[in-house]
């Protein structure tokens, strides 16, 4: 393998990561507000099918993406309504929606299986794409991949730099305190759940109109990405930059699986294809290992110097969720 094909491969990693990025960033927004939208897997499939169908029907790729976002927002609205207004369990509702939307996508999308549809084209950015290495990596991509870069910065800036973003963190952390400071907690939670859902809804069409173009029902190979997106959200510590790192790591592992196949003929291809999923979950465990009691005990027994170092490392790795994640809010 020569260096230019590695470079192209890595550009492919960024490109392939775009849909997962939308899902993870969307979920990060939602969970920051204290709501878990567990329907992600169904959202991705339904928006992939819906986006593809609309794009085929209208002939407009833009309409396809809008339809995806709309589907994501609607599914999120169901989550918001049942958990905020009806005070139902977010986990139960989200889980059922995840299954329902998946089967709905297979059922409703039957007519579109193997139909020819539009596909996003690569738009190299003038000037920027000429930069050696970086140009190929970042600036010879399609619109949605560019958007997946931009949205990381945008959402990070909103959460950590703006006044409404501070309030967003507040309602997820301690809604009672946010309420005392003038927030309409439940209205804001509705808003962010729907926005988060819409962003996540872009993931589907990014698959079906670009990364894995077309619709093949259960053979589309999209089942499972939603669950991994949920775990990357945790890995990301509800911070867009860290989440992006997780997304790229996952995408990189997937690419590695493909590249290594010819060199490891004794390992069945299925193993390499599936490996990124458990690997990602192992990373997740590693990140939150400092919570375990035996780790604290082990640390206490270590000599001063390595212990300090380990503590520091674990603290950096550690990410604690918004304290009121999944907890309904009622003002007295």
């Amino acid at each position: 393998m020569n260096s230019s094909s590695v470079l192209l491969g890595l550009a492919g990693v960024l490109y392939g990561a775009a849909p997962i990025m939308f899902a993870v960033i969307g979920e990060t927004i939602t969970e920051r507000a204290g709501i878990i939208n567990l329907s992600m897997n169904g959202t991705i499939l339904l928006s992939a099918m819906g986006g593809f169908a609309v794009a085929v029907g209208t002939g407009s790729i833009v309409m396809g993406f809008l339809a995806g976002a709309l589907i994501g927002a609607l599914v999120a609205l169901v989550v918001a309504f049942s958990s905020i207004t009806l005070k139902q369990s977010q986990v139960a509702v989200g889980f059922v929606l995840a299954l329902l939307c998946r089967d709905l996508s297979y059922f409703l999308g039957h007519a579109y299986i193997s139909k020819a549809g539009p596909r996003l084209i690569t738009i190299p950015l003038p000037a920027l794409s000429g930069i050696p290495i970086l140009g190929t990596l970042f600036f010879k991509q399609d619109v949605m991949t560019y958007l997946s870069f931009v949205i990381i910065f945008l959402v990070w800036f909103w959460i950590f730099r703006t006044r409404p973003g501070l309030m967003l963190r507040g309602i997820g952390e301690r809604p009672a305190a946010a309420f005392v400071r003038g927030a309409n907690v439940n209205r804001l939670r509705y808003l962010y759940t729907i926005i988060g859902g819409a962003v996540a809804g872009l993931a589907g069409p990014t698959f079906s109109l670009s990364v894995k173009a077309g619709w093949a029902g259960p053979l589309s190979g999209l089942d499972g990405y939603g669950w991994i997106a949920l775990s990357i959200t945790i890995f990301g510590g509800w911070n867009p930059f860290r989440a992006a790192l997780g997304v790229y790591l996952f995408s990189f592992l997937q690419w590695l699986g493909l590249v290594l196949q010819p060199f490891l003929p004794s390992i069945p291809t299925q193993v390499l294809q599936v490996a990124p999923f458990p690997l990602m979950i192992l990373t997740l465990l590693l990140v939150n290992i400092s919570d375990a009691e035996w780790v604290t005990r082990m640390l206490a027994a270590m000599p001063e110097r390595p212990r300090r170092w380990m503590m520091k490392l674990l603290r950096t790795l550690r990410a604690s969720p918004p304290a009121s994640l999944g907890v309904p809010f009622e003002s007295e």
Partner: protein
Amino acid sequence: MNVELKDIQKTFGMVHANGGISLKIPAGTIQGILGENGAGKSTLMKILSGFIRPDQGEILLDGHTVSIHSPADAIRLGVGMLHQDPLDFPPLRVIENFILGSAGGLLPDQGAVLRDFKKLAGQFGFSLDPEAYVDSLTVGERQQLEILRLIWLGASVMIFDEPTTGISTAQKMKLFAALCLLAEQGKTVLFVSHKLDDVEGLCSRVAVLRQGYLVGEAKQPYSTKKLVEMMFGKTISVGGRKPCRADKVTVNLSKLRVEDYRLKVRDVNLDVHCGEVIGLAGMEGSGQGLFLRAVGGMTHTVGGKILIDGRDLTGRSYQTFKKHGVAFLPAARLEEGLVPGLTLTEHFILAEEAKGFFINWDKGRLLAQERIKEFDVRGIPANTVESLSGGNQQRALLALLRDSLNLLLLEHPTRGLDIESVIYIWNKLKERCQKGTAILFVSSDLEEILQYSDQVLVFFSGKVTPPLDASTLTTEKLGELIGGKGWPESTDEGKLA
């Protein structure tokens, strides 16, 4: 700002939390609101601060009727409240907490806010690092942050709900100084408390609430007896000191060492006699909690020996300790001590360790009824524990203990309880001492330590004093030791007493 409350009424279900309370508070005063737990103080204050809506009644600020629908309305009108557990955001930084909820454009002007923050903090003599995370602050410091924030938002009526619970003496002095400064600036300060000493020492006037009604008002100088009478509707006296230390040693600690990653408690030697009460004093997190849990087998010891009733139980689990007559009552009553969601009956059945597969409900109910009566728990067997007040939860915990115990370990046995419950609980504990149980307890209340202990151990960042005789110890001396003053150069010598 002059505050007037007119005929405030609020019912929760069948309970009259506020049954028509009228009260006038002039600007520039510190008004005490006194009452035992459940007297309706918090409800009244939450109504004034917009947290809950009254069923009936009017609030007048400077003579104008106002309608307060939310805490945000209240703060716009200049009414701010500091909650018992400060309503802030622990994982955020101090400065972010300060900004959160303030009006302004999309991007907060960090520089300007920081200047305001530092100016205000200087004014009150608070030293808070704006970049520190709130979860690294003490309760006292979090209160300071909230005070600054409310003033910054323009509060001229400030409500403090039980602010002296869970803060150190030094922080209390600082808080009181700040409250006096606020009153001098012409702000109206409402100080809600069930602690007579605090109210008497700070407030220029006081209103006493009992069972949802205003039962009386008083001005300085106060007669403590009268205030107590108003609070409880009867006179209560604290029992005298009744040492019942026997000669028999029930617990023997030698060279005990306990550590966690922050703190090392070294080489504690201690003999605990039957019927003896030993108070463990110190600032929160000085090692006394760790020590207490180690003696109960809940934390691993690093070195030394623990002998309970002559048996070496070093390194054994809490279950083993329990079998040998050791019991532990945690400070987090509802989280660690009781099982929320289960009723009193179910608790008694669980504690009984009866044999057999099926539950004998009738027997359980009878047992619960008996114990509820014996321990004066205000509740019925079918009540779930979380529906009880703090004092009644603590009574229930005591009622759940086995009859004969060698050692009882208590964390903050009376934190957040009203005086009546405090006296009741300690009477019950003393009864156990007379039967030969030794008690080790951690408390941040110096008066409690001096009042009820026979001996006191003071902790300061892991260092431990030899047992000090409580009858000759003064609050001042104890306060100094807790603050790290007056310690001998080396305390590794072991016990002196």
